[in-house]
């Protein structure tokens, strides 16, 4: 390390003619024997010439900065763009998978409007409004007499998609826990609430496809009331 530092110093002092006679003799002898040192001394001489021109150094510096910032047609963003595209495609793929396996599975027999052609879409939608006779005859009946009174909704309700459907009831038995189930017009259960101790429940219809749905109010596994809603 020390020797390297000394050599660096000697190279500098040699260029500046600052070596004394003895040092110069020793250095010249070293130069003669060591081609690497000769190369370094030559390079140092060139560096002193080139770097002394401060104008050219400034010009280079400005050019490099502009080039790096502007990057004319430079493809430095390509790896980033490729990575971003891959992430984007993966996200889309995952979303599709989730939609296919999750939401659609949840609303299993619901026609997915986005997947159908316009012609089929109409067919699917009209199919969603075919009532279930077995449920139709039970609409409006309440099986528990005066101890349970459903105030809202009406037994037949028409609602726009995205509007909340509010269930409100009174019950003489405080310990009652009410469960609400929702079926589509194919008899498939598409929603089930947890047993609920209160007297008001709000159901969002944002993710419901247009069609007929039947709700059931259940207490202690016993059907209390059945109604129908049309989501438009």
């Amino acid at each position, binding site marked *: 390390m020390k020797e*390297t*530092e000394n050599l*660096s*110093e000697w*190279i*500098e002092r040699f260029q500046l003619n600052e070596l004394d006679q003895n040092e110069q003799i020793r250095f010249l002898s070293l130069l003669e024997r060591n081609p690497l040192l000769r*190369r*370094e001394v*030559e*390079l*140092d001489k*060139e*560096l*002193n010439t*080139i*770097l*002394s021109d*401060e*104008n*050219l*150094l*400034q*010009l*280079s*510096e*400005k*050019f*490099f*900065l*502009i*080039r790096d910032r*502007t990057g*004319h*047609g*430079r*493809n430095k963003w390509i790896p980033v763009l490729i990575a971003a595209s891959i992430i984007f495609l993966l996200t889309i793929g995952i979303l599709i998978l989730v939609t296919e396996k999750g939401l659609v599975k949840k609303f299993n027999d619901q026609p997915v409007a986005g997947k159908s052609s316009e012609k089929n879409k109409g067919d699917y939608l009209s199919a969603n409004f075919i009532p279930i006779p077995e449920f139709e005859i039970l609409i409006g009946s309440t099986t528990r007499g005066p101890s349970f009174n459903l105030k809202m909704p009406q037994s037949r309700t028409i609602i726009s998609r995205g509007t909340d459907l509010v269930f409100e009831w009174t019950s003489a038995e405080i310990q009652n826990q009410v469960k609400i189930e929702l079926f589509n017009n194919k008899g498939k259960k598409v929603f089930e609430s947890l047993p609920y101790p209160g007297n008001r429940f709000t159901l969002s219809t944002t993710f419901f496809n247009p069609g007929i749905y039947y709700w059931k109010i259940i207490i202690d596994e016993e059907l209390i009331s059945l109604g129908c809603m049309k989501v438009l």
Partner: protein
Amino acid sequence: MTVHYSDESLIHGLRQKKTRSIRYLYKEFFPMIRSNVERNSGNHQDAEDVFHDGLIVLYLRIQNQTFTLNSSLKTYFYAICRNIWLQRLDRKYRLMYQSDFEVHEDSDAYATEDYYIREEHLEKIRLYNQHFLNLPRDCQTLLKLFFRKVPLKEIAGILGFKDENYAKTRKYMCKNMLRKKILNDPNCQQFIIYEGNREPE
């Protein structure tokens, strides 16, 4: 809104190394240079190098106050860059396939009249400047001051070193670091190995 510079104002700006003039030149002229280089066995990086070297040549030429432009600046700059690229191709070809340099002296047909703006010297300027600009900031400042011939005692004061001796040692270290970077750069080997003791003509 795009500002348009006349050739005269560009030359004036370039004489003073104005960033906006260099940026304009790069924005407007580079696609043409790139296209030429890429059509002649080069790539994007080669084109950028040639553009830099052409900029140096143009800068050096316009320093002469009697400099007159007989064509548009774009045409003139294109010719400079084209010559540089042809010379470079020729030199690289010789480096690759010829061991005897002296055989092809005629290839200087494209050469510029001045040694200082010869193609290989331009490449050295670019590479050495690039390495210099990659040194730590304090080394760059120290060496710039040294090349401006600022006395070491003053340099020590400016950079907050404890004394002149430390400034001197630091200068040796910085210079050594720069030399080692260049010696280890494969792009610089062509000059270091082949030039040997050749003196500027």
